[in-house]
């Protein structure tokens, strides 16, 4: 079995609302796969279907080669799920959170205790094993939730926005642990709206928008396909950046005017900057940077705020 997720024309509707509108997804064993998209793009609905807690409305879905409609518990026994919001047991200790959850998988108590200790070591919570969950920091709770998702030694771990709401240190620690898991051969499937997270962790990803897949590929491929190699950010000391846009016409592949700056999508940032000076435009500041997944994301899903 090579394909852990096979979705074809997958649809999820809630009444009249279509959350997932016919997507095709394949995830192979050992991959780190990401669902990117703004809020309401259908990422979480897709994850819930993959986690076998939400029956698809239409299309084909196979998880670990099995049919979630029929084999839900059997599939879930081999998955690890880290939900968007921590649902830990605040009354229980850190260790008990893992041991009680392990029991739901029919893991013997002794094995559960041993595995709990190993996992607490892995997520760097060993010294908090006997403390209650409530006083833990956000990052610690997240790591504990990830550890809980690993008690059954899953073949595939589903992570719904694993680092949302964490401070930078905590995020980097989570990323590093997830990277270790990936190295151990665990298949990771995650949703995120952080581009740096996707670039750090994902071998392959899809950008979702409005329930559909807008683009698919590796982070590098997507940047090459939907953006240029470099981006020049020009800030002009004026009320409006609009008038400068005309004067920049023809420079680079694409140009985007924002309220506070103009973005030039070009292959060679330094050359474009030189051309800007030749046209005797005097920007207050110039920044040449490499294109990122964020540029792809905003290009594909637009800059309009979705709530």
């Amino acid at each position, binding site marked *: 079995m090579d394909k852990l997720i096979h979705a074809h024309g997958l649809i999820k509707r*809630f009444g009249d609302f279509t959350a997932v509108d016919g997507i095709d997804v394949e995830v192979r064993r050992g991959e780190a796969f990401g669902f990117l998209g703004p809020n309401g793009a259908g990422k979480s609905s897709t994850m*819930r279907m993959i*986690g076998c*807690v*939400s*029956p698809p409305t239409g299309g084909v879905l196979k998880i670990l080669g099995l049919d979630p409609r029929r084999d*839900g*518990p*059997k599939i*879930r*026994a081999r*998955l690890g*799920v880290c*939900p968007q*919001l921590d*649902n*830990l*047991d*605040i*009354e*229980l200790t850190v260790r*008990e959170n893992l041991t*009680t*959850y392990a*029991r*739901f*998988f*029919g893991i013997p108590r002794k094995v559960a205790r041993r595995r709990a200790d190993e996992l607490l070591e892995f997520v760097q919570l060993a010294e908090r094993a006997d403390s209650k969950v409530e006083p833990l920091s956000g990052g610690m709770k997240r790591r504990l939730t990830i550890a809980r998702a690993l008690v059954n030694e899953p073949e595939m771990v589903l992570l719904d926005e694993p680092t949302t709401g964490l401070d930078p240190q905590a995020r980097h620690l989570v990323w590093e642990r997830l990277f270790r898991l990936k190295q151990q051969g665990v298949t990771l499937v995650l949703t995120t709206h952080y581009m740096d997270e996707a670039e750090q962790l994902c071998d392959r990803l899809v950008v979702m928008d409005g329930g559909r897949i807008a683009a698919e590929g590796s982070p590098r491929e997507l940047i090459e396909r939907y953006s240029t190699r470099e981006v020049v950010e020009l800030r002009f000391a004026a009320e409006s950046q609009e008038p400068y846009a005309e004067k920049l016409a023809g420079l680079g592949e694409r140009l985007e005017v924002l309220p506070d700056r103009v973005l030039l999508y070009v292959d060679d940032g330094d050359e474009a900057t030189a051309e800007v000076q030749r046209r005797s435009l005097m920007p207050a500041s110039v920044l040449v940077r490499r294109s990122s997944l964020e540029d792809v994301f905003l290009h594909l899903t637009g800059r309009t705020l979705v709530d």
Partner: protein
Amino acid sequence: MTAGAYVFEYYLVNYRRTWRASALSTLVMPLLTMVGFGLGVGAYVTGGVAGVPYLDWIVPGLIASTAVQTAIGESLWPVFGNFEWLKVYFAQAAAPLRVADILGGHLAYMLFRIVVSAAVFLGVGVLFGAVGSWWAPLAVPVAALAGLAVAAPTVAYSATVGSESYLPILLRFAVLPMSLFSGVFFPVESLPVLLRWVAWLLPLWHGVELCRDAMLGRAPGLIGLWHAIYLLAWCVLGWRLAHSRFRRRLVI
């Protein structure tokens, strides 16, 4: 059903952390009720009820009533909270458990709490010398049945309401009248016919009657069988309602 046992076990681990607080009230409540009603009110009911001293007559009713109170306490806020606040059910649904395991495991724990509270009350009754029959221990399973008959539909209610403010409404408009008019403190025959119907329809009265038969050593007869069937019907209907509510919340 083994998976349901794991869920039951989970609640027991939780109980190990909180049992001290609940144990106190499980013991103190019966003591207070015994002193207040049994001895206090009983002093005025000099003739007894149906040829039985008031204290002996009231204890079985209090056991059934306590079982139902415990059932209500365990099936309102804890169930609502597991959906809305702690999201315990959602965490369980991600594991290889079915809706029936999640619901059954929690109900099994409620049953455990009901049995403990009924048994403790029976013990207090013995201490007060209010228990005279060898059949008295049967009051515990009977009270457990009555408790479950109330817990199952209440779980369905807690899984349905969208706001916490609906929980006390059930206490005020269903539990309070049920406790007053179910023959716990006085025979339902003293009530006007309309209120007697309230007693007959709600589960508690049937539990009270069966408990009283057990503790006074009376043969329950055919009507006793009907009481048991009626309580079982509440259990079954309550389970089916709760199961469909849980399904709607957990599998969407």
